């Protein structure tokens, strides 16, 4: 493996398990058509959740049997199952063959697949009740691998025989984007040829309950699920919880060209940081200086001018922070509202998939670049007054954009953490 620094890094595979689609091609179609994956869920009503709608990938009970054996599924919760399906899809989409269980590990390929909350459903439904009852001896063998934070990436490593770094990062809602940045830097340094990168999050009500308790979920539109996720809207009243997994196969350009791989896009730059809970930042709010520095660092590393960015796939969750985020982008890029790139929210269609959000939304950004479109940002027909100056730059319907050349994707998370990635259409 080459140890020279500054390898160029490209995206050669995508794995998507989203509330509105499974598979990269279906996801691209769903985004273009602005298909919502938000549904009403009776079990949330039965449990007296304020928000009774959410985004859950459909058909997984059947789908999982096509990807995983009974033995494997025995020790997997939804977080792990979603990660496995998306990672296998990214692997296959990259044109790679699955290797036999007794094959040599692939020492050149690793994974950074994060999660925000992880296996809390296993803890709540299996571990805690038995421990409370004094029945530890009846827990069986599968608790640790399901509740350890790295359960998702560890399972993927075994399924695909990965031999390079395999880890799970966790930085709340920045997780998936941070994973892409970390994997990008590892390949760039020449420490791996390929890295699966992204995030996964299960769909358990135990994951969502804490957010409902905080009153940060929208509880006003249970009767209109597809309208409930309203980033950038004046009537936004909190985010809609989502789930699933988004995994990108990042690869050195050298490796991709050598094996004739299809290249979706190039990763030009990326940055992560933290606002330090200072300057207005806190556990739950971003320090605007941190956000702007993160964006500027990513753009600077990419070596592009802000005006080259054609679209921003924002974090944009439908909380009070949306107008602040848009203004931070404008400040960071040094562009007035009317000269800003298109800015839109994939969460308007799939909800906020927490630790999976960055992975899913990076996949969305790459697909938009590859196919030349910017999907409409749904449910913001009543634009928030704080973003009215940007009205002409917020697409309410999907725009065909064959000239789209650079897309910026950012995620911001609890803990005042930030991540930003710059994708560019690949040209040799």
């Amino acid at each position, binding site marked *: 493996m080459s140890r020279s620094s500054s390898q160029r890094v490209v995206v050669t595979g995508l794995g998507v398990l989203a509330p509105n689609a499974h598979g990269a091609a279906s996801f691209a179609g769903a985004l273009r058509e602005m298909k919502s994956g938000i549904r009403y869920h009776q079990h949330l009503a039965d449990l007296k959740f304020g928000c009774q709608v959410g985004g859950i990938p459909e058909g997984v009970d059947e789908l999982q049997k096509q990807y995983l*054996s*009974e*033995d494997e599924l*025995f020790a997997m919760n939804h977080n792990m199952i979603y990660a496995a399906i998306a990672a296998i899809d990214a692997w296959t989409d990259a044109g790679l063959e699955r290797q036999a269980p007794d094959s040599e590990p692939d020492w050149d390929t690793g994974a950074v697949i994060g999660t925000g909350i992880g296996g809390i459903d296993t803890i709540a439904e299996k571990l805690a009740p038995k421990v409370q009852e004094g029945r530890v001896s009846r827990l*069986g*063998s*599968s608790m640790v691998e399901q509740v350890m934070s790295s359960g998702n990436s560890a399972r993927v490593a075994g399924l695909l025989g990965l031999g390079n770094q395999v880890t799970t990062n966790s930085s709340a809602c920045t997780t998936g984007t941070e994973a892409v940045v970390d994997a990008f830097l590892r390949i760039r340094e020449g420490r791996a040829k390929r890295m699966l990168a992204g995030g996964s999050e299960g769909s358990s009500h135990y994951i969502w309950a804490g957010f409902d308790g905080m009153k940060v979920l929208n509880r006003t539109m249970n009767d209109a699920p597809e309208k409930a996720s309203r980033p950038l809207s004046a009537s936004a009243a909190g985010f809609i919880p989502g789930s699933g997994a988004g995994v990108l196969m990042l690869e050195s350009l050298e490796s991709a060209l050598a094996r004739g791989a299809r290249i979706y896009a190039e990763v030009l730059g990326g940055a992560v940081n933290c606002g330090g809970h200072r300057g207005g930042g806190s556990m739950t709010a971003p320090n605007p200086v941190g956000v702007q520095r993160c964006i500027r660092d990513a753009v600077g590393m990419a070596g592009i001018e802000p005006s080259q960015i054609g679209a921003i796939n924002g974090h944009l969750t439908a909380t009070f922070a949306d107008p602040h985020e848009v203004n931070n982008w404008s400040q960071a890029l040094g562009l007035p509202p009317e000269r800003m790139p298109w800015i839109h929210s994939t969460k308007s269609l799939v909800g906020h998939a927490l630790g999976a959000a960055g992975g899913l939304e990076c996949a969305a950004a790459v697909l938009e670049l590859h196919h030349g479109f910017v999907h409409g940002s749904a449910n913001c027909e009543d634009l928030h007054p704080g973003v009215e100056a940007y009205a002409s730059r917020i697409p309410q319907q999907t725009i065909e954009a064959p000239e789209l050349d650079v897309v910026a994707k950012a995620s911001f998370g609890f803990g005042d953490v930030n991540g930003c990635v710059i994708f560019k259409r690949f040209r040799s």
Partner: protein
Amino acid sequence: MSQEQVFDKVVSILKPFVRSPEGLEAVKMETTILGDLKVNSARLVDVVLEMEDAFGIAISDEEADQVACVGDAVNLVLNKQA
């Protein structure tokens, strides 16, 4: 329960954990659980718990440690039921 019935039940308990279809195809009393059936050794704990529930018996850690092949598991059950 007859030996045959216990054998069939033990095999059905092992089946979800078996990673060698060929081993399962040719399963007999002498078939080793880890070697021939390629059951993950960590899952033996789950097999023992399933056996306790299925046959209504208690299996000590020491007894479980002696189980290497399918016949060991079958005989363990038969001895408990005797």
